[in-house]
């Protein structure tokens, strides 16, 4: 009889637990429902993010290639400009040689005219004609002025050459950007692989351009005509060279 009583108590306890569970269930079901709804809404969002990352990642090699193309194009254009400047410089050199010969010829002709003038000095009409002939001749000074202008053009051409250093400097900046793109691409690829292994199976191209260990660019390269930059460098070099010289002297006395 007491066993039966004990079993009944157990059953009632279990029923009571079950009642608590049902009450808890009633409370949790709406939460579970909203969680399910949240997940339903979140999954497409996550898929969209995943696709967006995938799309961005896929575009990166293209961006990187475009940067390479820009560098190649500017290098090609720079080489063409340098070729033209060389051609101009050569032509200026040739023209200067021609002018030099002209100067010699003018000198010679003027000397001959003076001789002729001396020969015909008893004939005033002839002297007048020779003088007119002399004054109609190309002036020596005019040739010198032309030479001066040519030298100025030559110097300007050379300055164009020097300004083209900007190509090397910008190509280093572009290489730095390229390096950054490849690094981000690698990170995104790793992220995509972690989120969805199928990205690789779907044939998504992974970074073909792997980061190289040695950088051959200066990310801080800048095209600056600030003369103080070289002065600062010179100061450091001089300081260090003086230190080195002093160290050598000290070594001799030690």
């Amino acid at each position, binding site marked *: 009889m007491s066993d039966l009583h004990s079993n009944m108590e157990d059953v009632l306890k279990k029923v009571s637990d079950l009642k608590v569970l049902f009450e808890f269930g009633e409370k949790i079901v709406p939460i579970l429902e909203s969680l399910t709804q949240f997940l339903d809404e979140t999954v497409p969002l996550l898929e969209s993010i995943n696709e967006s990352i995938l799309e961005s990642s896929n575009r990166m090699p293209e961006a990187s290639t475009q940067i390479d193309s820009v560098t190649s194009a500017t*290098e090609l254009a*720079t*080489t063409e400009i*340098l070729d033209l400047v*060389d051609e101009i410089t050569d032509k200026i050199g040739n023209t200067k040689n021609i002018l030099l010969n002209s100067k010699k010829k003018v000198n010679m002709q003027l000397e001959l005219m003076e001789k002729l003038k001396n020969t015909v000095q008893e004939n005033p009409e002839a002297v007048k004609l020779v003088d007119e002939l002399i004054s109609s001749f190309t002036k020596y000074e005019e040739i010198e002025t032309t030479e001066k202008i040519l030298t100025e053009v030559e110097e300007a051409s*050379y300055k164009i*050459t*020097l*300004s*083209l*250093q*900007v*190509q*090397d*400097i910008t*190509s*280093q900046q572009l290489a730095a950007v390229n390096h950054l793109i490849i690094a981000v691409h690698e990170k995104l690829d790793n992220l995509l692989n972690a989120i969805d292994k199928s990205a690789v199976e779907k044939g998504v191209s992974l970074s073909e351009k792997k980061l190289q260990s*040695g*950088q*051959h*660019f*200066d990310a*801080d*390269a*800048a*095209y*600056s*005509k600030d003369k103080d*930059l*070289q002065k*600062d*460098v010179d100061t*450091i*070099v001089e300081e*260090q*060279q003086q230190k080195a010289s002093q160290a050598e002297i000290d070594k001799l006395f030690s």
Partner: protein
Amino acid sequence: MEPNFLVVDDSVTMRRIVTNSLKALGYTQYIEAADGKEALEKLNANAGVNFVITDWNMPVLSGLELTKAIRSHPEKSNLPILMVTTRGVKEDILQALQARVSNYVVKPFTPKILKEKIDAILATV
């Protein structure tokens, strides 16, 4: 001493600009290399080279590595080396001096600066 230059730079443009500047300064003897490795090969093949003008940032072997290689070379260790680079921060300059470059020029350079440095180096040779 008539300088016989080895101009080392991976940029075709910069090699042209440096060699054009050398020509403008009256120097006629020079050869070129596109990186440090090629420079070492050319140094070994051309005994007449007695002055190196090198960039820092280059593929394969950088200008700094080239400097170190030259300084530890049994026959070429005393070659004058002028570093011409975009790297202008103090740490870089000190690193280059530690590797024993003879002098240092920041890009963009002018022929005047180049001449000054070449003359200063030649005066000590």
